[in-house]
């Protein structure tokens, strides 16, 4: 780097750190017009009464200021159990695994959300590495701004050590570019990556996504994964999982906010439908769809003025989520080429859900199943 370039970066860092204004330096990884085109093409799917045609994929559900605000509201809704419980119990669960994270870690957070959890993680890491770099990654620039502020304000992390990245991390090419960026910036120093809040469950190809995300870890890195879990799998439990989401009004508002923002549909909250099912031996799956129940065919206009027919009974899948079978977690992790270093579990302490729904926080390290000799429990009990 030439001296003049270094000066520019230095000056910029000083200007940001010294100003009273809440500047943030954001790295934008993608052309947002491409994103809009992708959203449009997802909404051009064939008619389906079960949410298998048109869809809003994860990322787009949070994209823009409307969904961002709706998400923040939903997270604060006591009826939206998964997030409420996830936020409430995160402190305890994080405290239980954090001692496995040594000193000197930087932090990369995939999907900041409201930033509450990143804040806890950062404050622990900062104690052991005051000069750490925090890289929140999110597809939504508004979410990035909101989450990053919540995560960092008052922590004593200097402005230029925060590098938000606007990027769709579900695309492999994006991840490859992102990996190079991170590795160049941190050198050989270890990084704690995180994917929290059951974000993994929102993707159709979740196993592949996890494998892609964890593939950027090096032996010195760690990966923090949080997922919603269930003790058992059955159609009945899938029904109960559906109920859990159905209850929250704020959640309905959130899932429909992307439609509201990106189409001219008049949204009716009672047209939001939930479908629960068992996904093999690994998870309970909940699909949230918006169904045309107006009694007639509609035409929906998209932000690029494209018109999409939305016939009666047709659906748009708004959201996908899962509760993973706890017994399948090890396999999911192993398939992603990781092994767990520590895990904590918290049950939902609600009388209505006495069926073993909860959240698991897993600290993972690259490198598959622990060798014999690393784990006394297995050494003792495996014959």
């Amino acid at each position: 780097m030439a001296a003049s370039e270094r000066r520019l970066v230095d000056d910029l860092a000083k200007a940001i750190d010294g100003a009273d204004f809440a500047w943030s330096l954001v790295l934008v990884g993608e052309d947002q017009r491409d994103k809009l085109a992708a959203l449009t093409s997802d909404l051009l799917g064939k008619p389906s009464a079960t949410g298998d045609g048109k869809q809003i994929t994860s990322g787009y559900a949070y994209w823009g200021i409307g969904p961002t605000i709706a998400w923040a509201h939903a997270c604060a809704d006591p009826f939206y159990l998964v997030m409420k419980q996830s936020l409430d119990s995160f402190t305890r669960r994080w405290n239980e695994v954090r001692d496995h994270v040594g000193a000197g870690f930087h932090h990369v957070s995939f999907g900041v959300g409201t930033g509450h959890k990143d804040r806890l993680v950062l404050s622990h890491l900062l104690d052991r590495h005051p000069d750490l770099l925090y890289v929140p990654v999110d597809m939504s620039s508004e979410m990035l701004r909101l989450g990053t502020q919540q995560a960092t304000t008052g922590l004593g992390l200097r402005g230029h050590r925060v590098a938000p990245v606007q990027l769709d991390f579900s695309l492999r090419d994006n991840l490859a570019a992102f990996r190079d960026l991170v590795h160049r910036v941190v050198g050989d120093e270890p990084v704690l990556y995180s994917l929290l809040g059951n974000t993994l469950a929102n993707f159709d190809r979740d196993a592949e996504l996890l494998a892609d995300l964890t593939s950027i870890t090096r032996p010195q890195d760690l990966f923090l994964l949080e997922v919603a879990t269930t003790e058992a799998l059955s159609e009945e439990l899938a029904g109960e999982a559906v109920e859990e989401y159905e209850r929250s009004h704020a959640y309905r508002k959130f899932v429909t906010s992307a439609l509201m923002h990106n189409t001219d549909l008049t949204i009716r909250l009672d047209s939001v439908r939930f479908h629960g099912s068992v996904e093999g031996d690994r998870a309970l799956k909940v699909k949230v769809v918006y169904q045309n129940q107006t009694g007639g065919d509609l035409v929906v206009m998209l932000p690029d003025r494209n018109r999409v027919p939305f016939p009666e009974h047709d659906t748009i899948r708004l959201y996908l989520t899962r509760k993973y079978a706890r017994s399948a977690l090890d396999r999911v992790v192993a398939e992603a080429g990781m092994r767990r270093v520590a895990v904590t579990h918290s049950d939902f302490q609600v009388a209505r859900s006495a069926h073993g729904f909860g959240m698991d926080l897993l600290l993972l390290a690259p490198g598959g199943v622990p060798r014999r000799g690393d784990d006394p429990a297995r050494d003792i009990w495996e014959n």
Partner: protein
Amino acid sequence: MTRIAITVLTFGALAVATALGVAWFAVSPPGGRWEPAVNSLALLAGITGIFAERWATQREQRKQAIESIRLEMARNRETLDGEAFRPSAPPGRRVYPRLIQSAVDSAFASGALTPRRDAELIDLLHRWRSAVSSVNRRLELTEMLVFTSASTESAERFHEALHGAGSFMRDVRSLLDETQTYLDSRTSD
């Protein structure tokens, strides 16, 4: 030494007495044969009686030994099916109940089982004994490590390892199944 001497003396005397009784019968005049005949038969009854008594005692001992082994196995089954060893039990610090083997031990010590008749059962019970002591030792180690570790995660790991697919407990359970089935099939004799 003295036992053998006494046995030899007893059976020797009985044999000689029988031989004399037979000879006496042979040389007696036809009218005086009642006495040697009664004498010889009484001796014969005495000899067979000793063996019959021995045989009955041994049979009784064996029956009792097998019965108490059967009870012990049922107890062990209850323990393994009990709350502590259920995969659904909440993982956490706990003292596990132990498997017992005193009936098996005393059956071996008393010699109630004979290799001639019970070869298969003896083999099963030997395997079972070593499995039981192994389980108990592993439980001890588990408790020690779980109780001395500060994190609850360690308890979870042990819980999972104990119930895992490759867990030693599986073999123990199937060995118990095998032993119980064998004992049940032996109820008739």
